[in-house]
């Protein structure tokens, strides 16, 4: 049985929000390390140090939550449709990066991000062949 579109959209907003929160926590943790990775050994040390940052576990929790909602959505909706609606998280990410991480999101970056969202919406508007 197919779920109504409204619930699918609601669930995808939830999974996008969780994913954005997860990415912001992860990037924030990585920024706090300011580590330069070159080579496998450095990478392993980086991962070990990263695991010791408490915020990273928030990132993983949000990521897991997002994954479970996503798995549920996938069992109900077409892969293409689900991916298409998930495009809203690009706007969340651009906004979050600017507000939380103080990244400089310029006109070009916003423009490119919006082009991507338009592209994904275009993909979602077309029915199945």
């Amino acid at each position, binding site marked *: 049985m197919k779920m109504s579109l409204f619930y699918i959209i609601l669930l995808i907003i939830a999974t996008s929000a969780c994913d954005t929160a997860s990415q912001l926590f992860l*990037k924030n943790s990585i920024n706090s390390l300011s580590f330069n990775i070159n080579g496998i050994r450095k990478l392993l040390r980086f991962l070990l140090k990263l695991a010791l940052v408490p915020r990273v576990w928030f990132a993983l929790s949000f990521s897991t939550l997002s994954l479970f909602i996503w798995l549920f959505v996938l069992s109900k909706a077409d*892969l293409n449709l689900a991916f298409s609606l998930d495009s809203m998280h690009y706007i969340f990410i651009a906004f979050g990066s600017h507000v939380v991480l103080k*990244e400089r999101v310029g006109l070009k*970056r916003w423009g490119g991000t919006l*082009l991507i969202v338009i592209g994904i919406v275009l*993909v979602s508007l077309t029915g199945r062949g």
Partner: protein
Amino acid sequence: MFKNRLTLKILSFLVFSDILETFTHFCFKKSALPESGLNITSLHEATVFIQAMLSSGFLWIGLVSVLATFVIWSAILSKIDLSVAVPIASFSYILVPLVSIILLGEQITFLRWIGILFILAGVIMVSLSGEDKKAAIP
């Protein structure tokens, strides 16, 4: 500080991370596919759903792939801005339809290909925005 420069090396890591992510989503769709007839309205039915998914081999392959993606993704984020890395990762919107056609038997219409072109243009634009930032810092 040139920390945010997007090099060819980082770009190839991003593409690899995308291929892994595409593979992950393919595995998850495969593991969720047999349960699509289930209508989950109660906690009991949710438990049945989760149990059925846990017994699928595709779910576990997908989870290993998630872990590998996480490691690569963390390495990428140590080099570039989040607001650059995430849009460029949308490259998977080009990979996923291809995989959907080949392995899941889904169909892609002409308009969808136009949408994919938009995404490609957006990815290129975001990639170039990193250079802007470098120039903006005196």
